[in-house]
């Protein structure tokens, strides 16, 4: 079965420094992969998605993620954190049978002034 591991439940960075949020997946094939962001008291919004067209995917708000099949990873990065990036981030993989999705437990990003 598909599964997703987000290695850090909480990441804290200073404003202007790089962000790295880690995601590893378990799959018997190369799946599509998604990152969603949830700002406090809001619904989830798509940040970016990998669909096998290119391994480096650019998303909104300066985020990008690189799909590495050999490492079964899809880590999310941003060169310079902004205060508005403080949110919860979820890595998501489709379920085996293609009818729904599996969410990782989430990583809460704090950005310090």
């Amino acid at each position, binding site marked *: 079965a598909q599964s997703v591991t987000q290695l850090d*439940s909480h990441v804290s960075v200073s404003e202007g420094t790089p962000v790295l949020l880690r995601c590893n997946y378990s799959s018997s094939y190369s799946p599509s992969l998604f990152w969603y962001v949830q700002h406090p008291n*809001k619904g*989830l919004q*798509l940040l970016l*998605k990998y669909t*096998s067209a290119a391994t480096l995917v650019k998303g909104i708000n300066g985020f990008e993620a690189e799909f590495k099949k050999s490492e079964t990873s899809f880590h999310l990065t941003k060169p310079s954190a902004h205060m508005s990036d403080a949110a919860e981030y*979820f890595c998501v993989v489709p379920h085996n049978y*293609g009818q729904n999705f599996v*969410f990782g437990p*989430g990583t809460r990003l704090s950005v310090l002034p």
Partner: protein
Amino acid sequence: NAGVTQTPKFRVLKTGQSMTLLCAQDMNHEYMYWYRQDPGMGLRLIHYSVGEGTTAKGEVPDGYNVSRLKKQNFLLGLESAAPSQTSVYFCASSYSAGLDHTDTQYFGPGTRLTVL
């Protein structure tokens, strides 16, 4: 377009009471989902639907029922609420989950439910 809307936004119930949460989408999506979000557990799928008139169980279906009588609406029912159902509930929709699983989910703003 309103996207995905949820009604109500907040609700407090007493143990044993019943209620229905309504999700509506105006994007003509086939797939709809109900999730619950609890601290440290991410989003867990309760039930989902792959089209009008269909429903299927997700990861945590016990204590909930759903109906998809119209394509644009997906209802989540709690017949006899329990404190363990205190959570934030999110509805989502997508065009499909697709053969190559590329479709984006669009989420509603959530319903915060407290069961006393």
